[in-house]
């Protein structure tokens, strides 16, 4: 499935959170959305995942203009989102979280608990995720493990587009590395991945395309060949401002 936005925009009352942003997500590729705090990254992915409705521009799925009414509808279309703080329910076990909202069912609305446990364990192992006990509460996992489980979950449940909101921002170097590996693995499985981050060092190694946002407007969408890490970093920080800062710091 190809996801595309054309000149998409969204305002909250008088706040223009997003204006004229165009992007494209293809199967088996990673599109990174980069931008500073308040740039509109979360707003953009909330539109993509059906939480907010865009109020200008077009949202296209396989070329067909679409308006999503709910996260459920997005999920049914194969667009799965791992929200930064809303990835999992801490007091529930790993396997219950793994199937939340998509429980394998038998007759009478029974939740096939045995199958859920087994599949969760197998799937996590297949993604190379090292969880000892699928019965442990998700709250006892580390941040990176939690993100990894959420990614494995989306992959297993048949997502075609996987959207990740700052999955690495709260993590240490090693843990971030683990999550980046799962992003690559999801791409290898043919998913289109949208990876939101404000860290170009996380984005550059895994990204195929880069969308830069600043104060709700797009600074452009670049393919990896078109842009180097250094340029990406400079663009993100608002080029001139960074130079200014460097200058100020040096003169002190």
């Amino acid at each position: 499935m190809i996801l595309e936005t054309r000149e998409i925009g969204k305002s909250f009352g008088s706040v223009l959170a997003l204006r004229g942003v165009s992007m494209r997500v293809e199967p088996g590729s990673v599109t990174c959305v980069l931008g500073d705090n308040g740039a509109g990254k979360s707003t953009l992915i909330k539109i993509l995942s059906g939480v907010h409705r865009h109020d200008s521009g077009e949202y296209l799925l396989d070329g067909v203009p679409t308006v999503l009414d709910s996260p459920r509808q997005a999920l049914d279309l194969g667009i799965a989102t791992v929200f930064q703080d809303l990835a999992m329910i801490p007091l529930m076990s790993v396997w219950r979280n793994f199937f939340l909202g998509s429980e394998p069912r038998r007759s009478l609305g029974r939740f096939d608990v045995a199958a859920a446990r087994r599949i969760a364990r197998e799937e996590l192992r297949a993604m190379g995720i090292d969880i000892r006990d699928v019965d442990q509460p998700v709250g006892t996992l580390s941040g990176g493990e939690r993100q990894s489980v959420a990614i494995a979950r989306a992959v297993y449940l048949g997502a075609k587009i996987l959207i990740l909101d700052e999955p690495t921002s709260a993590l240490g170097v090693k843990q971030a590395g683990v999550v980046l590996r799962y992003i690559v693995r999801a791409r290898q499985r043919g998913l289109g991945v949208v990876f939101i981050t404000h860290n170009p060092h996380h984005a550059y190694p895994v990204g195929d395309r880069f969308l830069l946002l600043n104060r709700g407007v797009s600074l452009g969408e670049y393919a990896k060949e078109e842009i180097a890490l250094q340029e990406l970093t400079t663009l993100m920080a608002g080029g001139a401002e960074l130079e200014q800062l460097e200058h100020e710091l040096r003169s002190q």
Partner: protein
Amino acid sequence: MAWRGGFAVTVAAPADERLARAGVLRRLLIRPELGAVVGALVVFAFFATQSPVFRSVDGVANWLDPAATLGIMAVAVALLMIGGEFDLSAGVLTGTSGLVLVTLATRYGLNVWLAMAAGLVVALAVGLVNGLVVTRTRLPSFIVTLGTFLMLQGVNLGVTKALTGTVQVSGLARADGYEVARAIFGGTIVIGGTPFRVAILWWIGLTVLATWVLMRTRAGNWIFAVGGNDQAARAVGVPAARVKIGLFMTTAVAAWLVGSMMALRYTSVQANIGIGQEFIYIIAAVIGGCLLTGGYGSAIGAAIGAVIFGMADKGIVFLGWDADWFKFFLGAMLLLATLANRLVRRYAEQVRH
């Protein structure tokens, strides 16, 4: 920590071998009902050693009765609390349901079954309104149901006074269909020569049903999820509003059942019945391991919490103590159980194995 490998290859060792190390004791400790089980054993031992009547079969039948009627409510309230909401109108709604039943059957000549059906419709409507207001406005359910609690309290008294000139309606025994309905909802059955209230069977049956729903159905998974974090649940496609409205309506049905049982048993209903009970339901659920913040708890725990109350309620009488001590006991149990549950949960959350 599991990520010893970091960037390097993470080894997927066989899960079984590591599972064995998880510890049976810890598994038991993180069960939410543990505190209630220990509490029930202690309370039973306390009264049983001092009162032979208390530990006799007749005594057990005697204290299981208040445990049962309270337990039916506590189990429903526990589900609601696991789902992250409160219902302060649940107690007074037992009164409303009973009043509707007795009033329609005695003053408007309705058959008992029709009058019960009308009571059910009223209860469901109250549950639906509670649920809709809470989910639509996102106001705390504590406030919303405090509002319905006060409104129902006023209606119960106002309508009863207007119709009868007194604060009670009575005479249900003369209504059509009374005998059968009473046998099913308010009667006794003899087991091994001892009469037990049928309420006890209802209570056990509903506890088993609630536990099954929680642990083995999709709805159960959703209840834990909306209570644990309803935005996260919504984000993965759980219909959070529908789940919560369903839980409010379930509580209302339990209130209707208990209200009808009481009306059929005593053939009359006081207009102020059920007021103050709402907190006892919540306390039983909390003793049973429910968190006030939602997302955690158990139906069996709440049922056991109700047993503790039943034992204390009757045990104090058997010992010839003043019934006022019941309130003291209630407060002490609540504090102890909450502390115990908090310790257990901290342990469960913090120990990473």
